[in-house]
């Protein structure tokens, strides 16, 4: 359980359209992705329609929260003042066990430890009263 951070300064998600549903689960510290009820395909980013079978029907299915690193960056120079205290930070692409891939900031893990295939798991950072953000840290 991440602690509430009254000093949270980083940009918050706009929560446009279906993104609002994704973040509603994040607030409960649940990572859920859309899963097509037509063909069973998982998807992320949130979309109204399944690109595999064309169905508009889906459920928000619970993710294991586990995955492996596909790629990353490590930002050294902050390009917005909000990130001045955050650098250096890494942003990873994570291959989730469900087959989707997501973008998230790495937490509690040294950038030097990063490598492709490294197991990671989701943690949530409470950013505002209504908003928690999924982050990832090295598993184990």
């Amino acid at each position, binding site marked *: 359980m991440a602690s509430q951070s009254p000093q949270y300064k980083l940009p918050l998600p706009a929560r*446009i359209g279906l993104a609002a549903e994704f973040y509603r689960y994040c607030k409960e510290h649940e990572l859920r992705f859309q899963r097509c009820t037509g063909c069973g395909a998982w998807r992320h*980013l949130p979309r109204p329609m399944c690109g595999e079978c064309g169905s508009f029907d889906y459920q928000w299915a619970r993710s294991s929260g586990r995955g492996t690193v596909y*790629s990353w960056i*490590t930002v050294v120079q902050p*390009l917005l003042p909000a990130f001045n205290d955050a650098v250096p930070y890494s*942003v990873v692409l994570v291959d989730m066990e469900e087959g989707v891939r997501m973008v998230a900031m790495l937490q509690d893990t040294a950038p030097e430890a990063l490598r492709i295939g490294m197991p990671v798991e989701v943690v949530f950072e409470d950013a505002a009263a209504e908003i928690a953000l999924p982050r990832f840290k090295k598993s184990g």
Partner: protein
Amino acid sequence: MAHFLKDKACVVGVGETRYTRGTDTTTLQDALQASARALADAGLKPHDIDGIVSNAGLAPAPETLAANLGVRELRFAVGNTVGGGAGACAGLQIAATAIACGLARNVLMPVGWHSYSGLRVRKLGSEVDLATVPGPIGATIADFYMPQGAFVPAHFYGWMATRYVQEYGVRPEAAGAVALAARRHAHLNPLAYMRGRTLTLEDYLNSRIVSYPFRLNDCCLETDGACAIVMTSAQRARDLPKTPVYISGCAEGHPYPDDDFGARTDLLHIGLTDAAPKAFEMAQVRPADLDFAQVYDCFTYVVLIELEALGVCGRGEAGDFVRGGRIELGGDLPILTHGGLLSEAHLAGASHIVEAVRQLRHECGERQVKDAEVGVVTGWGDFGDGSIAILRR
């Protein structure tokens, strides 16, 4: 049978402003200045123009350009080509199609961009409201990248570059070879912003990491200026003063899905991966036939990935390909003979077209590729959209 679009349209005029960092002019003034020069170069008057192709955010709207230039019968206006820096090169395809189909006779394509003095790409999310970013990428960034600390091209393309470096063991020296080639060529270009500013491999390797894996010298310039291109049919081109440069092949391509890096099975399958074979097929040209390649160079590593997508070398081989001066003037495949976005100026890909045209007209003086007959231009933008044109004299 030859493709219906092959060699049907030509670039007949090109023009540029000065390229600076800091300016007293507006982007409209610059775009008009470059357009007037391109028209003069083509031997045409504004009333000859009946088509304008421009790219939202990188050029004034066609209606504005027409009103100021005195274009009285605008009948083909495209105000938003695709994919940021892919748009200029994709515009060649749009204009060539319109000309070949008779929808327009003479088409003007300007880019006027103050990426230094105007809104800077690095200000995405602060001064630039993500909701106003054209195309599909604004919402993705606002909801899923920005809150995780990724919000500028250096971040997005960095994911691709890291995967590339890790998968193929590419060393920084390979990206450095791209930066050095661009700089060496800029020294020979009077318009190039970095002309006369030395860059050695040691300088490159010592430049600070801004966002791993990118060093400062992997990143393109931000500058102010404009350039413009005038196109017409192959038939009319014969009556105009300059050597016509033919659009022999063109294509655009889009990675899937185009609005999110994360969901791509293979992050290194870019738009150009799909577009390049189509353009070579249309032009009936092989990569080995190219005399030069003006490859879109927002970042050095992107150039390496594009060289592979072009098929000039196999996947994972660009690091070896660029060694030993092969991509410099005098080498097998000189790239960025004007200096590119890295060392000339950032015209969002339009100056790559201008340079290709000047090379094929043999106007490039000490940076001329000897006996250049055929060359390629690529565009790259947004989340990896690709465009390509194969030009010949």
